[in-house]
């Protein structure tokens, strides 16, 4: 019975790695980390720590958050591969990138 159990655990382990969220913090008018690479199917979670609201808005319109107040979060799950530039639409000099591959 042992090998069967081992295989099950291996499979479970792989699924957990793919489902792990990636965290980006919005702090001091910056996205950190500014350039992130994730596997397809990953959910990215942005959290705003600033007293000033920010948004997360992709250049190509793929994802766009509402205005995020302090401690608000926004989640987006990335499907297909690609490079996605985004900004804060309220402070557009805040720029960052997500690469999905």
């Amino acid at each position, binding site marked *: 019975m042992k090998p069967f159990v081992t295989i099950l655990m291996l499979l479970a382990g792989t699924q957990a790695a793919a489902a792990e969220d990636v965290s980006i913090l919005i702090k001091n008018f910056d996205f950190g980390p500014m350039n992130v690479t994730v596997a397809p199917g990953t959910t990215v979670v942005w959290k705003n720590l600033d007293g000033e609201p920010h948004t997360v808005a992709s250049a190509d319109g793929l994802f766009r958050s509402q*205005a995020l107040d302090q401690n608000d979060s926004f989640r987006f799950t990335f499907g297909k591969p690609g490079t996605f530039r985004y900004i804060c639409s309220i402070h*557009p000099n805040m720029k960052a990138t997500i690469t999905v591959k």
Partner: protein
Amino acid sequence: MMESFSRRETLKCLGLSAGTLFTLSGGILTAMDPAQARTETPLFLQISDTHIGFNKEANPDVAGTLRQALDKVNALPRPPALVLHTGDVTHLSRPAEFDMANQLLSQLKGELHVVPGEHDVTDGPGTEFFARFGKPSGNRGYYSFDMQGVHFIALVNVMNFKPNGLGALGDDQLAWLKDDLAGRSASQPIVVFAHMPLWTIYQPWGWGTAEGEQIAEMLRRFGSVTVLNGHIHQIVQKVEGNIHFHTARSTAYPQPQAGNGPGPGPLVVPPTELPGMLGVTMAARAMPLALTDSTLA
């Protein structure tokens, strides 16, 4: 039939706590006798950055401080007939915030005109903002009107941001502005109001408008121009020829001076100091006159 002179507006800044009135004339601040103030008829009130919906440490009760400001204005013997809100009515563009803001601002006796701040249009098209305030401009956001001989121009510079963070009018609005000013008598006083500063105060924080110089060029020939902005939650002024640029305080919370910190966020101050950093601005007609010289050829 020639108008021989035009009249320059002076601006009075009404602090929430002290209630000090002072006039600005040709860029020089002079204290004003309160008795004198009571006999002058205010032309309009500028109110800005009410940020209804904000509730963090810098001011947990922005509706309360707004109410204080409005009560002070309504208590004047001659409340202004016109109210210009230079944007960031709400904090997060939410319907409930617009509801509350409307409820409070409707207590002002004057006719209300509003331009959006970037906090009012965070959804992109500004659906909530234009549902409430879009009528005078046919939902374009920019428009003009005349009152008591003064030409008022409402501009929108928060829906077309440049990559460097500066606000912008966009080509259509710029063309409209040129057209609106064309053929207008240079002796008619002009008041322009928009959310972001129409001149560059501090570019790293986006405190400016990309077409600022072109706009100033269009306004230069007029004898009296007053440019009213908000956005930076503090008073910064510039006088350039006949153009008086002025940003107003917020009724919600102060912001740091340019460059003092990582960015233009809410500035926390001791609660006793807060009222002195919030306020509104009153404008009245006063001497001296704005003189426009012209030659025969």
